[in-house]
């Protein structure tokens, strides 16, 4: 009779050990972190810069569907770094809606410091406000298209 390549016991035993090992780690580490966080009175931070910024788009997301293409406009005068950061954050939050840095698209997302700043920016442009979410984010329409 052929001898098996490995003894079945040699799989069972390490398998049990690995499951226990993984369970121990997956329970012990979060537990340790939990105790630390509790003792330090820390909470998951809902107010980090990115989360706060992204929350502005909560309502906008509901108005668009995957694969939609929308334009994007922000205040002029931003540094390239700041403009890109805001655009990429908008894209990150709106994915899988495609956000393009252009106003030559029928629907455009306006991302401004405030509603007043937004209205000032679009003055003189062929853009009309479709929805103002009151936090500097607006859905705009290009009336030429």
């Amino acid at each position, binding site marked *: 009779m052929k001898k098996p390549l490995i003894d079945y016991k040699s799989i069972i035993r390490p398998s049990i050990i690995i499951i226990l090992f993984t369970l121990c780690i997956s329970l012990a580490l979060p537990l340790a*972190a939990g105790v630390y966080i509790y003792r330090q009175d820390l909470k998951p931070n809902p107010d980090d810069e990115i989360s706060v910024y992204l929350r502005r788009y909560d309502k906008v997301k509901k108005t668009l569907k995957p694969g939609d293409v929308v334009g994007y406009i922000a205040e002029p005068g931003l540094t390239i770094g700041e403009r890109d950061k805001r655009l990429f954050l908008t*894209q990150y939050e709106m994915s899988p809606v495609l956000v393009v840095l252009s106003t030559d698209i029928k629907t455009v997302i306006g991302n401004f410091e405030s509603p007043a700043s937004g209205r000032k920016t679009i003055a003189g442009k062929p853009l009309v406000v479709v929805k103002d979410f009151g936090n500097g984010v607006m859905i705009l329409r290009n009336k030429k298209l």
Partner: protein
Amino acid sequence: MMLSFLMFFLALIIPVHVAFIAMIVIWPIRPLSLGSLVLTTCLAAGLAIGATSCAFFIWLLVFGSPDRGFIFLEPVFLIMISSGIWILSRTGKRTRSLEKTKEVKEKGRMEAALLVIFCIAVFSAFVVSVLMFIYKPHGTWDAWAIWNMKARILYRAGDGWQKILLSITSGRPHPDYPLLLPGTIARLWSYMKIDSLVVPAAISLIFSFGTLGLLTSSISMLRTKKQGMLAGLALLGTVYFILYGASQTADVPLGFYILSTVVLLGLYDAVDDDNKALLVLAGLMAGFAAWTKNEGMLFVISVIAARALAVLYFKGWKKALNELAAVCIGLLPVLIMVLYFKIRMAPPTDYIRAQTTAMMLKKLVDPSRYLLVVKEYIKQIAILGNGLMFILAAYLIFAGRKIDRNNLPTVVTICGALTAVLIGYFFIFVVTHNPLAWHLESLGRLLIPLWPAALFGFFLIAGGD
């Protein structure tokens, strides 16, 4: 919520367990020790994450958005693989088991003290990682602008994912970066039915601590436990490694796969077992490095060339051809997938798209660019790990060199591969289309994936057992 996290746990643990069984079948280490268990678990985790990411990508290509069918079929398929391995193992040819290469009984105050320091360092690193998640739940810029955004597209876009991925990433930074990390995250979200921020953070944690476990356990097995812990401490002492690990970017996952490749080559060399399965696995891990980040492709070319030359020199051309063939068996399936992604689905890389050959040639003959890059290389290598390089140099001077003859091909492979990668980065900087000074700021980050493998090579050379 509980059900989501149960699904998350199952989606992780089932593939890791199957990979673990595969590992101990093809590489049965006896006697079972904590070191071998950690080593096998870390390799199994990397293997499982890489393989399921590839499987998820192929599912997306063939069947589109993952539905209930995927969540039902994948575990069934994995259990079938695990049963198949078990059945094959009962009928196949018996291979010699790989005994632990070094059975050194090391007890004493030194080891106990090191163990205490090591545990404190591990716990501190864990707390830092958790705090990073608490304060930056979306990760750093690259995490949300590249990796997590791609994961969101794969998960949220439905059947139109290919078109949407291409449209969204075109014109953005690094549109051609491959999909191991986004695929892994999206796969877990598909099981959980929610795109939880915990998933990218957990994957980061697995790769960070997997790299640590792999480095510590492999050095413990190939050298001594003391050196294993020193290697681990050196890695934990590299603050940027922990911070990048927790940043949810792909640098530490890439470092994990680079380390896995060289560790598997090291294990193959260390034992006169001629277990080619280790070489196949090394090829697979190198393939996963290429599937993680573009830099991984450079590593694949470098490690293949360095390994071929090392084996040619130490073992002769027949052995070199045999080994190369075994590595390629593991590497090719993943490489074909990466090339398919690059050719069919990804826009051309920024470096090619943004400039002409003439512009690149002009930069190649500009000595001022070379000078700037050399200066930055010296600076970044010197400050890597907050002066750790000097401590390691001092350690080498005091402890001396002690290279096991069997480890020589591995050491040469590591030195050759890492040097080739650094030379590759050097010329990418020289011809970059970005402002050079600005682009060079990323050099410190590019060194992080190479660091664990460099430490592995260092502790194969250093004495002080």
